[in-house]
């Protein structure tokens, strides 16, 4: 119908206007994102943390390996020493046995003929030779020299004995043999000493290696500690910055919500004010001019001479056109600002509205009221009126309801409004149109609350409670 169109258009532009302030808000976001910590920093922190872990792990592994190596070296050194000492002592024992045997042999001439003794001596020399050859070790120059001189000494000593086997020894040779034996003892002592020295120096080397390991471990641990502390500080800084930004964000959000609320409240006011002024303009200017026009046209037709039926008919058409226009203008003005609110008060205006909706739609509206004060502040009257208007409009447009009931009741502290219909209902969780938002907005800015109860097939109940300011009259 023509009558509804202006209302809907108006509402469209209103909600468009309400939606407007959200747009710049959104476009601000990318700019603020620049302040937001970049994801790269996050990755850097994670990378540092991983590197730190790797450092600790690697230095630990290296230390373990070094320790194991040192242990092996020590074992080797000890084994080598033991082997050497053993061989040396065997050698020494063999030589002594040889010396003893040959001494006995030389001192007892019939033994010379005994081949078994010879054989025994030969076996001993071979054994000594093989023990000399089998002397373990990697033959360091010093050791090799000591060994060689020992060997030479032994050989000379042997040769001396061998020669004594065939001819009697000259008396000075005995002294020589004694000297040589002392030298042999000495040589083996030197070798033994050298071995001890070797062990000592290997111990020294191990100690040095151990202290190097200690140093490197200390180094890598201090690096890890330093990096860890750095990481902790960086993370703390990062977290603090995030916290601060979140706080700022939250504050901005709260502020912009507050501003939005204020803005939409102002928009509701502005909308009502504008509607009122347009309505007044329409009524006062357009309506009155048309009214005057009608009166003039009426006078004109009654004053016309009787024989001017064609002109009379034309005037009649003009009059009916003007009348229709008056009606249209009046309807528009009424939708914009129901003059009943001013002329008759809230209850009468609601009753009028109920009858209007009944007249124009398929839905019958019953209005009940109790204890509603006549001198409510204007903003309360308009709030209740628009709330009911919107609820009834919704019911007519969407619910296919047959009947609707409006109940307005005043109480000590405020007003209760309830609009229910027997239409097809809807799911308020899912479908929350601008209409409901608009009602909520109006109710909230007067400190009231709105509840919409509905379910598919169950009809709809819109319920609102408005607290009245203490000064407003609550007398019924």
């Amino acid at each position, binding site marked *: 119908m023509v009558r509804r169109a202006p209302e809907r258009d108006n509402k469209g532009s209103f909600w468009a206007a309400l939606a407007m302030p959200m747009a710049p808000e959104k476009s601000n976001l990318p700019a603020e994102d620049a302040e937001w910590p970049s994801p790269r920093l996050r990755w850097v922190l994670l990378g540092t943390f991983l590197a730190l872990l790797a450092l600790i792990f690697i230095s630990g592994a290296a230390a373990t390996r070094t320790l194991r190596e040192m242990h092996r070296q020590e074992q080797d050194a000890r084994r080598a020493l033991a082997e050497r000492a053993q061989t040396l002592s065997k050698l020494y024992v063999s030589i002594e046995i040889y010396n003893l045997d040959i001494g006995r042999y030389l001192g007892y001439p019939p033994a010379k003929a005994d081949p078994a003794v010879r054989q025994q001596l030969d076996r001993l020399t071979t054994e000594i030779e093989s023990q000399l050859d089998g002397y373990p070790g990697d033959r360091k120059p010093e050791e090799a020299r000591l060994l060689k001189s020992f060997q030479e000494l032994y050989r000379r000593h042997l040769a001396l004995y061998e020669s004594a086997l065939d001819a009697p020894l000259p008396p000075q040779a005995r002294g020589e043999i004694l000297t040589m034996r002392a030298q042999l003892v000495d040589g083996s002592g030197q070798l033994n000493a050298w071995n001890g020295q070797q062990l000592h120096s290997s111990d020294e080397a191990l100690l040095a290696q151990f202290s190097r390991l200690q140093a490197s471990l200390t180094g890598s641990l201090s690096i890890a500690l330093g990096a860890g502390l750095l990481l902790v500080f960086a993370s703390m800084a990062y977290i603090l910055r995030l916290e601060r930004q979140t706080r700022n964000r939250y504050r901005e959000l709260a502020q912009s919500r507050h501003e939005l609320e204020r803005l939409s409240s102002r928009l509701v006011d502005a909308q009502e004010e504008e509607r009122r002024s347009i309505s007044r303009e329409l009524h006062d200017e357009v309506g009155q001019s048309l*009214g005057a026009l*009608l*009166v003039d046209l009426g006078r004109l037709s009654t004053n016309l001479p009787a024989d001017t039926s064609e002109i009379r008919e034309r005037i009649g058409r003009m009059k009916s056109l003007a009348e229709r226009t008056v009606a249209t203008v009046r309807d528009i003005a009424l939708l914009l600002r129901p003059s009943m609110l001013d*002329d*008759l008060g809230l209850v009468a205006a609601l009753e*009028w509205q109920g009858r209007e909706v009944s007249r124009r739609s398929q839905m*019958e509206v019953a209005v009940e009221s109790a204890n509603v004060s006549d001198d409510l502040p204007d903003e309360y009257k308009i709030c209740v009126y628009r709330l009911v208007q919107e609820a009834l409009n919704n019911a007519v447009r969407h619910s296919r309801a047959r009947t609707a009931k409006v109940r307005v009741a005043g109480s000590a502290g405020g007003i209760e409004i309830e609009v229910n219909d027997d239409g097809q209902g809807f799911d308020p969780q899912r479908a929350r149109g601008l209409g409901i938002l608009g009602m909520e907005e109006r109710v909230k800015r007067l400190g009231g609350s709105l509840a919409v109860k509905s379910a598919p097939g169950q009809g709809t109940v819109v319920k609102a409670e408005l607290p009245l300011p203490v000064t407003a009259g609550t007398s019924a």
Partner: protein
Amino acid sequence: MRQTRVLLADDHTLIRAGLRLVIDREPEFTVVGEAADGRQAVALAESLKPDIVVMDVGMPGLNGIEACRQIRENLPDTQVVMLSMHSDEGYVLRALKAGARAYLLKDSAEADLARAIRAASEGKSFFSPAVGKVLLEDYMRTLQRTGGEDSYELLSPREREILQLVAEGKSSKEIAGLLNLSAHTVETHRARVMQKLNLHGIPELTLYAVRKGIIS
């Protein structure tokens, strides 16, 4: 012949001018004053004591209905013709309760004003034909919804006669004279009409009569 003295109250100069033209056309009426709002209308009525006040409902300051109530309280001999854009029951009933005799739609003011003023000055009621139509439609719809029946059928012929006379604005005494009945009998009939139609007070009765087309 004594002229009927009329006070015009409307906040729009153009409308007042138009109304004045219509009234001036009738020799037995004369416009004695013009008021631009409710307060002025009450004040002028007090000082001029007109027979008829033609009053717009929607006026700034004090609206027409409230002004009508005050004038009727202070000057019982002054009748009020309400001018309104609205044919709605809420307006008509409130205008009647405030003591208005006639209720005229602005659309048809030019055609009906003279008749309305004449009727009011004789103490009768007058309503624009369109008002009766709208009221009847609303009434029929309400009946349909509530499933109630038209209680007019319950009235006896004598009761219908009395309903019409009361609605036209006649007092019980006048009706008694017209019908050759005692005032007491008229009162009894009137009370029964009210009871049968579930009406409370003369304004509702008048509204009912307008709605049924018994008076216009």
